[in-house]
């Protein structure tokens, strides 16, 4: 059943989680995602689901580790300083193959930075900021509706691969209110979680289970040693990379200049593309929906066709590195970044006018 609601992006996280079958939320307050935690505190207990405010972000993410190991759909949300604290255990979740969903509503960094919107956690989100060089699927919505939808996809992909999924939003998307169609999305069947911990007598086969992130110290069946287990997770990363790439192409067919942007700056960029197209300028947009895996090949293809690139990113330049990797030096890659906001304060935004100015300079 579909319900249409006028809600904030941060609330769309809650509705998406509820309709996506989330069992528990563990979180710790931080701006600009407080509406998320508050939504779960209000809506989950009355539905018989678990909400718990932990003593820290380290607490929240380790609660996810436990709840997911017990076979439940669990999630947390945080903003940049809290994200920093969660890195260690996200790595443990990957190692122990414990699926969970982490929502990161980015704010300005580094350090405590600002409490306002920014896009400054791209690298730690896509490269795995914790120990050991692991991979997570990173989904980057650009509207409240997409937040609602991608949270549900996030749970599906987490369970499918037994790996954490990250939903990367930002302070603008979190605060903006939009109409959202709220409903359960069917992504097809998943395997039973027969690996989960329930207590030996509650297992169908009556056998005990171990979940451990130190596979290199105490190898776990079915992996006889560290290297065979590493091979297994590497194959899984490959599979995710091959099967889960998602992106949107907008007016890119005949474009001479292509904007690359995700999240709120993708909305800004789309507006700029529309305005430029109205003036007959050949501009398009590639919007990665998954930031990992990243649409390297499609950007490379466009570079081979002779397109120039302009990255619109509310940071000092992070995703631009992936665009540079994609074009392999064939063409210049330009940046409209956080220093190009229309007013030089932490509340300023990158606006279409500034993007259009740059487009005209480059074309």
């Amino acid at each position, binding site marked *: 059943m579909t319900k249409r609601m006028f809600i904030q992006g941060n609330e769309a996280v809650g509705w998406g989680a509820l309709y996506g079958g989330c*069992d*528990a939320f*563990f979180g710790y307050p931080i701006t600009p995602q407080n509406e998320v935690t508050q939504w779960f505190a209000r809506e989950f207990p009355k539905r018989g689901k*678990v909400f*718990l405010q*932990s*003593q*820290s972000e*380290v*607490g*929240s993410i*380790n*609660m*996810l*580790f*436990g*709840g997911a*190991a*017990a076979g*439940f759909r*669990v999630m947390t949300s945080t903003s940049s300083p809290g994200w920093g604290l969660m890195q*260690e*255990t996200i790595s*443990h979740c990957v190692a*122990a193959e414990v699926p969970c969903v982490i929502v990161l509503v980015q704010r300005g960094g580094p350090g405590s930075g600002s409490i306002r919107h920014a896009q400054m956690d791209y690298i730690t989100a896509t490269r795995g900021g914790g120990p050991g060089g692991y991979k997570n699927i990173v989904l980057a919505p650009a509207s409240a509706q997409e937040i609602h939808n991608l949270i549900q996809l996030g749970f599906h992909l987490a369970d499918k691969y037994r790996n954490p999924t990250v939903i990367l939003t930002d302070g603008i998307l979190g605060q903006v209110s939009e109409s959202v169609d709220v409903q359960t999305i069917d992504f097809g069947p998943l395997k039973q979680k027969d690996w989960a*911990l*329930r*207590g*030996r*007598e*509650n*297992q169908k086969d009556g056998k*005990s*289970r*171990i*979940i*451990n*992130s*130190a596979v290199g110290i*105490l190898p776990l069946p079915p992996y006889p040693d560290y290297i065979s287990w590493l091979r297994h997770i590497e194959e899984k990363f490959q599979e995710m990379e091959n099967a889960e790439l998602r992106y949107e192409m907008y007016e890119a067919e005949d474009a001479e200049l292509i904007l690359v942007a995700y999240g709120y700056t993708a909305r800004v960029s789309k507006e700029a593309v529309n305005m430029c197209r109205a003036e007959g300028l050949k501009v398009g947009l590639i919007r990665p929906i998954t930031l990992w895996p990243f649409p390297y090949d499609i950007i490379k293809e466009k570079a081979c066709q002779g397109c120039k690139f302009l990255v619109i990113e509310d940071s000092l330049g992070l995703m631009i590195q992936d665009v540079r990797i994609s074009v392999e030096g064939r063409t210049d890659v330009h940046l409209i970044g956080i220093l190009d906001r229309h007013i030089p304060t932490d509340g300023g935004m990158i606006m279409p006018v500034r993007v259009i100015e740059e487009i005209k300079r480059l074309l």
Partner: protein
Amino acid sequence: MKKKVCGNPRIWKDPPGAAMYCPGCQHPVIHRIISDVLEDMGIDGKAICVLGVGCHAFVQVSWDLDILSCAHGRALDSGTAVKRLNPDAIVFTVQGDGDCIGIGAGAFIGAMTRGEKITTIMYNNTNYGTTGGQLAPTTLIGQKTTTTPNGRDAAMEGYPVHTAELAATFRGTVYSARGSLHNAANYQRTKKYVKTAFQKQIDGVGFSFVEVLSACPPNWHLSPTECLKRIEEEIIAEFPLGEFKKDDGTGI
């Protein structure tokens, strides 16, 4: 009715993981007590053991139980979620002193603040066994460790933490005790503490905690017998044995 009078606990896999421990280490003795208590109380089938990182965690190769092995210090955070989502499970953490009240202090205090219905057994060997006998929160004043080569100096490294006494100050804690294994009477007493702690969880009244003194011959540079003497003469003077709190969750 048949009563078992000897033999290995039923959750001990063959070969028992005691083989992983140094001669004279008492960690496997604590594992044995927990195994016997789970069997006596008939709760091993619904137990979920949540482990820290340290020598204590090697028990995972010995136990036929559902086991979650966590990041260093985080067992009580993960255990919290396991228990909240599975209220009928018996959830207990096995942790070293470093894991529980060193790196894991935040998780420990969080769990007690909330009165999580979990049981924690903390193995106190007054040092970090696994990584080579470094300073622990429980290291005695004057005790030499690899990171306090001249002995722990209170002015430099502070004072030993009395974890069982600390736990007893939390309203969410309904049971807190400290036991030792340096003789048969204390072995039996410690076993009683562990049993009481699990009973509190079954009663659903709050957090229950047992600290057990554990010998570490290689890092103390003492023979197993000398270790027992050290526990009796030195360590108990700093860490007295007994029950520090026993209530029914009403705060009485």
